[in-house]
């Protein structure tokens, strides 16, 4: 039989985890939730309620120690605070594990993929499995969140595009600006690639880098930016990041962006005004938790096409099948 202090610690720990699950469901905080599919809050509410009611039921029905002198106020406060802190850390770690998606690459698809190096970077190169060269090519600049590009890369490669996913390994300015032009140089020089039909697509910060590159690099014949951040304001720290990513991803993302400093230096809003004559498409999820859609409309409305996808957030946009097929179709038309 556990003593009252240990029992209370367990009780408070489980109750706090339950409260966090309810709040994660209520406010769609992916970084706190144990439920993978967060479109409906009910499973999160149920899980939270079961944990809270269960632990209250257990503690108050089994602990006779609550009716004898127990821990003093300070000890009670210490136990509750420690249990809350442990519950928060455990919740953040467990939700990170639950929301970590294994890469899609190669899963059930006959794609040819190889690691490649080019000046100033590295990446993964996918070549179309069924068609003969020359191939159009697309360079993908991913998000610092990591992953998310796999479906788009696979769909493009299966549709006859050579796809180079350039790794975001450098976060320093202005070095980061050379990543996409160097990747395009690599693709232009590669056998089998039709260098008159090279496009670029960037996700999140990668979208901003794409906007910056497309204004000065005319070798890019068409470009898509998926949820570009556009302005420093989009990289504010806070709980809102947990709506879009796990806690560890949020920490890495925020550090990569230098707390918004990188966006301030990139000035993608000013670059967006100069886009053309290449075709350009920007896509946002209607439930984007990081970027103000009104401001995005204002910044990118004149740059090219601007589309909004219902039911998607900032990062869920990247893995959406609707967006992947939209991207493939758009590049087929424009390249």
């Amino acid at each position: 039989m556990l003593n009252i202090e240990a029992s209370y610690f367990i009780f408070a720990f489980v109750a706090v985890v339950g409260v966090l699950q309810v709040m994660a469901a209520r406010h769609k905080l992916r970084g706190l939730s144990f439920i993978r599919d967060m479109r409906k809050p009910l499973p999160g509410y149920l899980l939270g309620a079961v944990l809270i009611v269960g632990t209250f039921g257990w503690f108050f029905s089994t602990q006779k120690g609550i009716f004898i002198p127990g821990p003093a106020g300070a000890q009670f406060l210490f136990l509750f605070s420690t249990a809350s802190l442990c519950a928060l850390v455990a919740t953040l770690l467990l939700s990170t594990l639950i929301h970590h998606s294994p890469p899609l690459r190669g899963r059930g698809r006959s794609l040819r993929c190889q690691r490649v190096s080019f000046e100033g970077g590295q990446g993964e190169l996918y070549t179309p499995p069924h068609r003969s060269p020359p191939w159009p090519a697309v360079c993908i600049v991913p998000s610092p969140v990591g992953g998310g590009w796999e479906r788009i890369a696979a769909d493009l490669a299966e549709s006859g595009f050579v796809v180079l996913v350039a790794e975001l390994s450098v976060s320093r300015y202005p070095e980061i600006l050379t990543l996409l032009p160097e990747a395009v140089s690599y693709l232009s020089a590669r056998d089998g690639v039709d260098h008159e039909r090279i496009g670029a697509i960037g996700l999140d910060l990668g979208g901003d880098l794409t906007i910056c590159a497309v204004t000065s690099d005319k070798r890019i014949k068409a470009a898509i930016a998926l949820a570009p951040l556009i302005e420093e304001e989009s990289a504010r720290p806070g709980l809102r990041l947990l709506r879009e990513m796990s806690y560890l991803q949020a920490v890495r993302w925020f550090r990569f962006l230098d707390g918004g400093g990188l966006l301030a230096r990139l000035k993608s809003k000013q670059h967006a005004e100069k886009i053309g004559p290449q075709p350009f498409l920007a896509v946002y999820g209607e439930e984007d938790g990081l970027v103000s859609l009104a401001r995005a409309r204002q910044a990118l409305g004149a740059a090219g096409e601007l589309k909004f996808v219902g039911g998607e957030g900032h990062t869920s946009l990247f893995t959406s099948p609707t967006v992947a097929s939209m991207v493939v179709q758009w590049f087929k038309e424009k390249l």
Partner: protein
Amino acid sequence: MPLDLGLFRLINGLAGRMGFLDAVMRLFVNEYFVPTTMSLILIALWFTGRERNQRAALQAAISLGLANLIVKLCNLVYFRPRPFAFHEVNLLFYRPSDSSMPSNPAAVGFSFATAVWLHNRRVGAVMYVLAALFAFARIYCGVHYPSDVAVGTLIGILSAYFVFKSGGFLEPLIALAIRIGRRLHLA
């Protein structure tokens, strides 16, 4: 104080008549149920992501500290024996040995509830109900006089109000806590 004793007898006289009501009061009277429930509500308020709720949670924690301090100071200068020391009571709880006046549970409950109510009326109202039940259960179960609870309630409300009104004095501390929370992506 005949009124105080009369009221005590009226409320405590209900104990032992209805098993269900006794069970409910025994749940509310202990030092675990209401304080833990209120603390969980504060955590929930924090994770709404709204600054006014986060301020409520922080001010509730500070109010609790202040209310506790005032109760301890009162205990140093004045000791009032518990009702069971001199009267026949229906005792549904253990026999606390500290001073009956002022009621610390009432001070705790009402400091929490007032701090929240000053920022969020709806949640504050729920917390007032919990605080009132906590205080009532202490009389029902025979461990406090109504006047103990009244003074504890006053201490709790005034502590929270003082913390709320002393914006300039505590503001840097509260702003710093929220800023650190934001920086850690937890506020």
